[in-house]
């Protein structure tokens, strides 16, 4: 990251003071937080849960739009290009949470961040985000996360393998490379059903004109069919084995890439975005039983209860997938589980557990 040492020191010096003020103010507002009162004046004046206000919704294509969000207190603006955020939107009284890659460049001076969303045919929330959000709407945010990032400086030769709205984290990376003027030999292989639906196509063309080392291979899958990595990659990118690769798109594409790179013994060079939290702490694993359907699945200690349920084909509720929103909370009838964020264990029968950040320690039964 480009944070200079001077910046680090000023921030470090500022944060404890800020914390002291907050702690003192909390003496007045206990058991609530000062933010609970300040947010009555301005909804963005709360760092208790990260919040943001929708400033603009800019259409990118017929079915995709860029949301410009002004984050409230507590947002640090120091995300890395390629990371994603959680966004919680209230629809009919209920918060619905999803994760989206940031498309904006990490910089403090802008005071806004952007995500670019495509309205999925079956996704009522993405549709609401693209078409139903009024400027001024207050949304909840979850801090940037994800390991899908570029090192600085980037590898001399890179390949970006993207499809559909998978372009968004890569766009953030390309914009960052452009801003720092460190554009390497970069090839973007970008699939989209049609030209009209290709998000950021104009900006990509402009970037190519500005940086000749950046080339974009467009593939319109409605006419040309899907890119078959095993056969087509050699044609569009003969030197893919020499490139550091970042891939983002639908799961089948990522699975195929993973297979191809593994077969070539190059899995270290491949970076994938699957929107999952990097959780520390290992539980022991065990057999998870889903009481209503009677389904069972055996998992290791790194697999969350949510992932286990999805593997077993149980319709698990989920939201932010990073332990914030409680949408995924289920009742654990019996068993012992570990919170992968902090290693805390829970074993009370009939305890409510957040499935997205917990894993089994032995056999577990969930009431779903």
């Amino acid at each position, binding site marked *: 990251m480009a944070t200079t040492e001077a910046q680090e020191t000023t921030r470090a010096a500022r944060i404890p003071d800020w914390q002291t003020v907050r702690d003192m103010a909390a003496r007045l507002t206990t*058991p609530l937080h000062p933010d609970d009162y300040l947010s009555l004046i301005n909804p963005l004046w709360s760092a208790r*849960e990260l919040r943001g206000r929708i400033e603009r919704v800019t259409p990118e294509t017929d079915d995709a739009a860029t949301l410009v969000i002004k984050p409230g207190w507590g947002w640090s603006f120091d995300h890395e290009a390629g990371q994603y955020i959680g966004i919680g939107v209230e629809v*009919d009284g*209920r*918060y619905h949470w999803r994760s989206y890659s940031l498309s904006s460049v990490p910089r403090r001076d802008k005071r806004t961040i952007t995500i670019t969303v495509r309205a999925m045919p079956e996704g009522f929330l993405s549709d609401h985000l693209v078409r139903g959000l009024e400027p001024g709407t207050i949304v909840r945010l979850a801090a940037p996360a994800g390991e899908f990032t570029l090192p600085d400086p980037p590898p001399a030769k890179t390949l970006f393998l993207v499809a559909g709205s998978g372009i968004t984290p890569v766009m953030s990376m390309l914009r960052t490379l452009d801003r720092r003027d460190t554009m390497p030999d970069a090839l973007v292989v970008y699939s989209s059903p049609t030209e009209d639906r290709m998000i950021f196509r104009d900006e990509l063309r402009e970037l190519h004109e500005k940086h000749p080392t950046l080339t974009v291979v467009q593939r319109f899958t409605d006419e040309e069919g899907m890119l078959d990595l095993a056969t087509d990659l050699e044609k569009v990118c003969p030197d893919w084995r020499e490139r550091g690769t970042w891939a983002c798109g639908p799961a089948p594409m990522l699975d195929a890439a993973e297979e191809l790179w593994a077969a070539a013994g190059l899995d270290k060079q491949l970076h994938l975005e699957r929107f999952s939290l990097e959780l520390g702490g290992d539980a022991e694993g065990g057999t998870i039983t889903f009481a209503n359907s009677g389904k069972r699945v055996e998992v290791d200690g790194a697999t969350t209860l949510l992932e286990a349920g999805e593997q077993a084909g149980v319709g698990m509720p989920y939201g932010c997938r990073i332990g914030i929103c409680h949408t995924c*909370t289920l009742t654990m009838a019996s068993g012992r589980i570990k919170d992968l964020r902090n290693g805390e264990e829970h074993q009370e029968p009939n305890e409510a557990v957040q499935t997205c950040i917990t894993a089994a320690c032995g056999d577990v039964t969930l009431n779903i």
Partner: protein
Amino acid sequence: MAISDVKEYTHLSEEQVEELGRELDAIREEIEQSRGAADAAYINRLITIQRRLAAAGRVTLFASRYKPAFFAGATMLGIAKILENMEIGHNVMHGQWDWMNDPEIHSSNWEWDTAQPAEQWKHSHNYVHHQFTNVLGHDNDIGYGVLRMAREQKWHPVNIGQPVYNALLALLFQWGVSLHDLDLEAIRKRRKDPKEMKRQLRQIGRKVRRQFAKDYVVYPLLSGPNAISTMKANALANLMRNVWSYTIIFCGHFPDGALHFTEEELEDETRAEWYLRQMLGSANFTGSKLLHIMSGNLGFQIEHHLFPDLPSNRYAEIAVKVRELCERYDIPYTTGPLHKQYGQVLRTIHKLALPNKMTSDDGPEPPSGFHRQRRLTDEERPVRRLETGTYIRRSA
């Protein structure tokens, strides 16, 4: 007389009880399906009003040396505390608003403006009281370990002081509640796990320090020359909240008509029988919409006990249906104006200060005095029901 079988008492057949259970399940289903924007707006609006009121009260009290400011400030603060404890805190901690997926209004992390830590409340209330409602020897809320509230509870000379204990409990309600989950009796008899006791005491200590410092140190100091009058006003606000919440809570299960049960009732109790016990063991009171909001909608105690985790703003409409069910199945539905209900409570407190043979009762004399030497531990209780609200034990 305590009831050992709800079916037998209500003269309902097993099929009728199960049918009643299905009808109540259908009411729950209907409310769950229709929860939406209007309900979310209700709780958000109420929280906003409560916080504004609290802030206005605190600011007004900076001028507490002037009588109008003193009383206006104390009243605003008192009402804010009542709203927070009753309609907001109690109901949020039951999980009534968890469906909104809003981490700021969620049973797992709500902490309320009273001395008892939320976690201990969720154990003693959501689990022990709501699941074992009015079962002698199981529900520690029958008299809160301080008062003798059922004729089946064995009389002891110490009960003669009940009128005094009752008055003290009303005045110091928040402190009484804060010790409720500790089980002082077990501590005295050295039956309590010392590790668990230390953990609970640490939690209480931390909460009490912060609550006490806020009302009796920090705000008085901020009032400068008005420190003493601000302290008095804050004490008055706490007193208002204590007496009011005591009154409402005592009208939930102690008026005439709210029945007690023996532990035989718990054996193989079905969900429908649990419903029936909740209906027989709870008492409503009537009043205006404002009264219901100020009392956390606990005037719909019967509906609250049937559906502890459904949003409180819907209890009024649920009550219409529950009442109709009660008429159809010929089940008593206890209700009356607040003053009448509390009058009955007061009478019972005074009557039961004396041994049974010195006072009259509408029902026949209970066969034998009920007296368990101690509270039950969680391990000795039947497994937990899910609809009464969660209880998550934190390690800290």
